[in-house]
């Protein structure tokens, strides 16, 4: 949807807490500089932020100014500020929030399905290969994302060759809450000198959050506010997939609550809660990861044995080939009911096959060689193409 720059928006979603609010409710945070009279705001605990994210340290004064949209004067210090914060969680909003599109993407899936690795590798790939291919960049939209992604995700995986620890449960401890990663997708607009920007917010749910009905409540809000959902499923958690997989990949016994079909059902219930009985309209990318453990099963000429497309957008034909191929594989993996369930509950979904690491990690959760991803960009490119942020390439 194209934003009209002059009119305030009625429905905005915070990329950090995923709560909905109208644009005029956006608050400002004092800059901390001295005002004309020499007064300064002193940092103090922010109860609103603490209620969302646990203790985040003292913050400067937040206030609402309904007369101004982009800059305001702090009523305490008298200093001018351009720092805008979410009226719900008091997170500092990205610079162009409200003036550019935003796409909240919930990344969800069972425990150990590889969500965090998937997101890390995608971002890295975007920086090195996909960005060139699309003529786009995807920098972090805030300091926390920039620092955290590099330090906690990328360095650990690419330089330390170590898989991240299992994402901790949202419900477990607010102190350890991991905020969504917010990136700014920028690409060249058709007009010279102009760019098109979109905020991408990835909320990486912990696998444990989806294993019980109680713990899923906290994730309901994120899924409800998300514009699109990436559901990561692990074929090695399926009995048929385990039968066909390379032995080295079967390091852990599957847990019944991590069964992909159960995870899909729980997520669907969360999405449908409070709505009429109808199919879910949000685009759903169903990604089967860890394909490296099953590569030997794919015949020559298979869509999952092809080179990745090199086109500057989402290659629709290739994407459909993969979709159909994975759909057929589901039957081999004893996942027929997943396909049936999706047909009955979702209006728009597509299957993807990917390998984030390109090789089976060692039992001590390390990557023995270089990270060699395969098709990790496909799901997000498809979602971005649905939101008209990247081109859809249709070949005859």
């Amino acid at each position: 949807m194209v934003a009209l720059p002059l009119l305030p928006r009625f429905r905005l979603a915070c990329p950090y807490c995923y709560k909905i609010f109208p644009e005029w409710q956006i608050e400002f945070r004092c800059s901390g500089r001295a005002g004309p009279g020499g007064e300064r705001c002193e940092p103090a605990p922010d109860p609103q932020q603490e209620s969302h994210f646990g203790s985040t340290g003292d913050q400067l004064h937040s206030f609402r100014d309904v007369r101004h949209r982009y800059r305001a004067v702090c009523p305490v210090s008298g200093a001018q500020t351009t720092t805008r914060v979410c009226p719900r969680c008091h997170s500092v909003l990205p610079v162009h929030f409200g003036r550019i599109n935003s796409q909240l993407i919930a990344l969800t899936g069972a425990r150990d399905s590889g969500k965090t690795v998937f997101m890390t590798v995608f971002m890295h790939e975007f920086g090195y290969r996909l960005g060139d291919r699309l003529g786009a960049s995807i920098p972090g939209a805030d300091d926390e994302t920039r620092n955290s992604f590099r330090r906690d995700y990328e360095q650990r995986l690419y330089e330390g060759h170590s898989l991240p620890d299992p994402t901790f449960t949202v419900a477990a401890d607010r102190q350890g809450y991991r905020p969504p990663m917010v990136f700014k997708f920028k690409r060249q607009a058709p007009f010279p000198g102009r760019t098109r920007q979109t905020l991408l917010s990835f909320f990486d749910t912990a696998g444990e959050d989806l294993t019980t009905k109680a713990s899923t409540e906290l994730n309901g809000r994120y899924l409800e506010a998300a514009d699109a959902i990436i559901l990561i499923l692990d074929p090695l958690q399926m009995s048929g997939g385990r039968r066909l997989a390379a032995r080295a990949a079967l390091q852990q016994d599957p847990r019944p609550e991590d069964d992909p079909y159960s995870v899909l059902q729980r997520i669907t219930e969360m999405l449908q809660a409070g709505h009429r009985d109808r199919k879910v309209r949000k685009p759903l990318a169903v990604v089967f990861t860890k394909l490296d453990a099953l590569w030997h099963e794919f015949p020559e000429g298979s869509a999952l044995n092809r080179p990745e497309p090199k086109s500057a957008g989402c290659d629709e034909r290739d994407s459909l080939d993969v979709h159909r191929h994975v759909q057929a594989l589901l039957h081999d993996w004893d996942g027929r009911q997943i396909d049936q369930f999706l047909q009955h509950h979702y209006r728009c979904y597509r299957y993807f096959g990917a390998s984030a690491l390109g090789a089976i990690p060692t039992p001590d959760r390390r990557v023995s060689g270089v990270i060699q991803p395969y098709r990790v960009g496909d799901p997000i490119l498809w979602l971005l193409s649905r939101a008209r942020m990247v081109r859809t390439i249709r070949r005859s």
Partner: protein
Amino acid sequence: MIQDGSESRYPGPGAQRLDRGAAAVSEDASCVGPGRVDQLCAESGPGVTAAEARKALERRGVRVAELPSLPAQPPSAIGRHPEFADLLSRLGRKLSIELVFGSALKRGFRVLKGLRLEDGRHLDREVIDEARQQTPTGALHDDWSGVLSILADAAQEPGALDDIAFWEVVEVLRPLARLGYSQRALTEQATRLSLERGEAEVLAAAVAEEHAMLTPRDPAAPPKTEPSVPAVDRSTVADPGVKPDPPAASRPVHTEPLQPVTDLQARTIRSRTDIVQLSWSPPPVGMVSLRIAAEPPTWSAGTVIAIRDADSYGRPLTATGVPGPDRRMTHELALPQARAFVTAMTVRDADAAVGSTVEITKRAPVRGLSARRFGEEVRLTWTWPEDAITARVAWQPSAAIDDEHVPSAGRQQRTCSRRAYDAEGGFSAVMGHAAQRVAVWAVIAGTDREQVTAPAEIEVPQTGIPVHYDVRRVPGFSGLVSLVRRQRRRVLRLRATRRCVLPDLIVVESRHPGIPLAPHGGEAVAKIVGRPMDPDMPLNVVVELGADGPSWLTCFIDPAKPAPARGRVTLVPPPVARLRVR
């Protein structure tokens, strides 16, 4: 125990030692003198006689011969002409008789009982006078005439010409022995002079024995020491028993300066990770001695030093350079485990010109090279050696390597930086469908220039020749008839990208939601008999489908046929939407 399986005629430990000793001798020599036989007897124990030792050697293919005594001084006929050797070297000759007999010498000659060519000719005043009449004009005329004049003068002394020829042959071999040439290598060098092989073996044995007698043996230094161990050489090492250098007055005077080797190169050899090939251009005068050491020499390239100083640096490489097609000399060397430097020194008499130095450290190649195909694209991964900054990746169709008649035009090479490798998840290149032999060299930044490790190689198997298929409506009138009669018929169109033999195919129809991935995933509705295919001649087959649609229509190679009959073909389906038949 005799290693080659033949039974020993000398039971007991002495016989075993004798056999082992004879085997060791035969590794380096094809001819020995009585002194070596006596030495072998002594080494084998008291029970072994000289006759037994002789027989043991002969059984190993080693001839025992009386060795000639070698002259310590040049014959007086040329001793009076110190410029003689210099004149020869300026003419690019090793033997003065080359100027007399020309190409006739190439047919072979002997020197042990006087100079005699294989065609029966002798060296005498008459022959020399004939040669003088044919002295070439031009720049070489004076030098050429000078040598022949000296020979003509010598012809007046009985036997002097024979002594000169013998001395010259010996003087070719002696420096080589000092440089560490093996006896077999000395023999080869002698035969290259066109000396009859039997005499070449005897002379090589004599020179080697003389060298062994003159060389002090250092018991602390094993024969194959690492480069850091100083040389165990030789006539230049101060020792009372060593043959003294000829008096300065009797030394030949050289007017042409020694020229160092400036283009010594070391390169790794494909498919051999433990070998490095050294190559250099031979200088116009002098012999090239390669010396290996743990550190580079302290002398700068181009410095002329005394040969005894050169001998104190590292150890010589006991090897013979082989002329290559580009007129460069080459020598293959086993890579040492430790960092080492090889220096080329141009040696003449008591001087050595220090040439260029190359580092030949055995750097570990990339490890764990693996390849994965995605159709025509191949993704390579490997583990980098420490300090490697980039890699060179070369690939070539395997057929082109195996078939020497196929030109190597298919070889391609690219460079992959380590940063790009890490960032992009390995190295990817479109290599086509054919089997490829891929080699990867790691490049390591050295102090002054880059070093390339030995290559790691891998064979990437071929994929089948792609045969594309497509599903189309039946065209024309028959298609219209099918439509009217509500018959579900489609044309399956197959098109090969290269000439190939199409194996038997089966066409499968499936009404499941998922597309069939294997022949058993649906009902076989048609069989296509295998046949040769040409890229210009697509194959169209009309397939009758079941009454109800929609359904998936896919094509598979018949799995019932034995693997060889399935051929090397990969069926490439069309976009999946085209496989859906209503």
